[in-house]
């Protein structure tokens, strides 16, 4: 009895799988531009996925309101296929493969975290499908691949920017770093910062780490305080930085605090409050000196979702714009043609500044340094690559 029941379940499931497969493959048409979104909707960074999804939905809505994307002579509407990658490598790969095989997308936006972007990039590259990661800063994501692009700069550039800033602008001779040892992004920037800071004649007096999910940093901060650095570098996510800063101040640590683009969210200000006042961080764009294009995006995003876009949203929007722009320029939905156009993009003006691709997948773009002033992000300086 029981076994018959089980086989029934198996049979039904396999039928379902086949049906899903069949339906997915059947619809191939030029009636729409099919774009995939591979985002971290669940897992340890759901805000990242959420911003990514929202930005793409906004872009699709805007384009479709104008009747669609201009491809050659025609206006073709965008159609998004959104997949959750759970912030897991294998799920990101499966999502990418599903978008390609079942939904037959032209290109995929995302994943964002490098740990997910790298395996997904492998899949897209093998199938010759364009993938643009808005936020993956690990050099390996695009390295040696033809179809993989990103909309952000990479870790070593940013580490260098902040090291230089700390040495030259803050006149710091000693620095301390507190970073998440289990996260590729944080660790990467931390190490590049250390390397460049010391090459520049400074000394990193404390190089402390914690593990993803920790909320108590008092031990590391006490050690850091004992080393008396002139500047504290926190290349960590904006949901952790406020706790770190708060605890640092409670411990009586009063040195300047600087950070990286992972600070770039309004949440940082709501969560961090007054403790962050005066801190600096490097990021992709400055809302207060934004170009008209960026202003427009910020306004539209705020109107639709009731909050300011964070850097992931801005970068995702740029990734989408880059792609749409390339499709229109190529005047075709042929993946190779779009890819070739994309790789030659010059001085493309996006929300996060001007981007130039020199044949590869990494854009050349400038970074800006922002300061927290009166509970706002204020433009401080631009750094050219």
């Amino acid at each position: 009895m029981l076994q018959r029941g089980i086989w029934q379940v198996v049979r039904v499931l396999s039928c379902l799988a086949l049906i899903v497969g069949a339906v997915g493959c059947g619809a191939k048409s030029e009636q729409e531009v099919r774009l995939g979104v591979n985002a971290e909707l669940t897992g340890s960074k759901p805000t990242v996925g959420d911003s990514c999804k929202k930005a793409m939905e906004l872009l699709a809505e805007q384009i479709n309101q104008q009747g669609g994307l201009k491809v050659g002579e025609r206006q073709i509407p965008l159609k998004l296929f959104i997949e959750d990658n759970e912030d897991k490598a294998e799920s990101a790969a499966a999502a990418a493969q599903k978008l390609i095989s079942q939904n037959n997308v032209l290109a995929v936006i995302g994943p964002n975290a490098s740990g997910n972007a790298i395996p997904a990039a492998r899949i897209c590259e093998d199938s010759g499908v364009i993938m643009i990661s808005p936020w993956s800063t690990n050099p390996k994501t695009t390295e040696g691949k033809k179809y993989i692009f990103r909309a952000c700069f990479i870790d070593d550039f940013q580490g260098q920017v902040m090291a230089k800033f700390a040495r030259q602008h803050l006149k710091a001779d000693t620095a301390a770093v507190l970073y998440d040892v289990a996260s590729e992004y944080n660790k990467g920037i931390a190490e590049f910062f250390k390397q460049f800071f010391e090459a520049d004649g400074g000394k990193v007096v404390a190089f402390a780490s914690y593990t993803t999910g920790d909320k108590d940093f008092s031990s590391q901060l006490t050690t850091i305080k004992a080393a008396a650095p002139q500047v504290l570098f926190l290349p960590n996510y904006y949901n952790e930085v406020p706790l770190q800063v708060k605890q640092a101040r409670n411990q009586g640590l009063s040195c300047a605090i600087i950070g990286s683009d992972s600070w770039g969210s309004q949440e940082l200000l709501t969560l961090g409050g007054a403790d962050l006042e005066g801190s600096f961080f490097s990021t992709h764009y400055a809302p207060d000196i934004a170009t008209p294009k960026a202003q427009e995006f910020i306004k539209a995003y705020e109107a639709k979702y009731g909050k300011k876009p964070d850097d992931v949203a801005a970068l995702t929007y740029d990734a989408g714009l880059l792609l749409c722009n390339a499709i229109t320029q190529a005047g075709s939905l042929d993946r190779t043609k779009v890819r070739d156009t994309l790789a030659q993009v010059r001085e493309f003006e996006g929300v996060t500044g001007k981007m130039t691709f020199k044949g590869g997948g990494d854009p050349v773009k400038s970074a800006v340094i922002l300061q927290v002033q009166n509970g706002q992000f204020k433009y401080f300086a631009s750094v050219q690559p």
Partner: protein
Amino acid sequence: MKKSNQASERGRLGGWYWTLGSLALLALAWLLPASGIMNLYLQQVLMYVGINIILTLSLNLVNGYMGEFSVGHAGFMAVGAYVAAILTVAVFPRAWGPVVFPLALIMGGLAAALAGLVVAFPSFRTRGDYLAIVTLAFNMIVKSILENINAVGGPRGYMGMSKLSNLVWVVFWVLVTLLVLRNVIYSNLGRGIIAIREDELAANLVSVNTPRLKIYAFCLSAFFAGVAGGLYAHLLQFINPRSFSILKSTDMLVMVYLGGIGSLAGSILGASLYTILMELLRPLELWRWVVGPLLLVLLMIFRPTGIMGLKEVRWLQPTASEETGWGKVARRS
């Protein structure tokens, strides 16, 4: 009595059927992708299913058959994945790839089996939930060490593997795992392992060498978890320590107990059901992880021992004649 025994005899298959069935499955695993009938996504999902079956089968040996509660199986998978990946990327010449792939997998498995000793020795004295913590600690230690070895990329992960895993290899290893575990379970060794679950003290008192069996069980289980890790590494062509966190271990636990403890068929079913269901629920996006756990809770309430807890389909059991060599004697009297 007599009637039911006859029925069971008919349902059981001999060695020839096994060989033929395995060959047919392997042929199918080669033909379906090669002929283009099965698209890449379905292949990918099926390979996940296969890898999860290997993991679930191997975890079931410790948790289901031996009755311990290991919650750190992803640690073994990590060891196998990294060792196999390092072998194909940095040790063997690249061109040898497909040829040495099975060797790399076996070496990865052996390394994992060696790591299995770390858990096996404490298990002589520590049991139940305390042993669960030992396995958990093992998982955390492996992850933390990997995060600190820059030569394998630390948290940035390790890559450079060719895509050596394919459906044929995955199916092959599923069959190997199934065959080895079935052969072990239906032997003196397996009976001893089950006796540990039933009553460890009594097992000792009927001359079962429980420490040795624990070593066997943990190492064997770790070996296959390691092989699964190697397959995983060469399927994604990228591994990072985060992929082998405690969350991965809990995924495996869910598959084991969903399918049912102490059952090979249950493991196959649990892994397939879980993997396929989670793929099918993809359109729900965020709500997938709300609906999925709810289904799990409901299933546990209505079938507390999992779908096939302590039951086995007949074709996985040895025949009575195979056991006694007496033909129908077992049925008489």
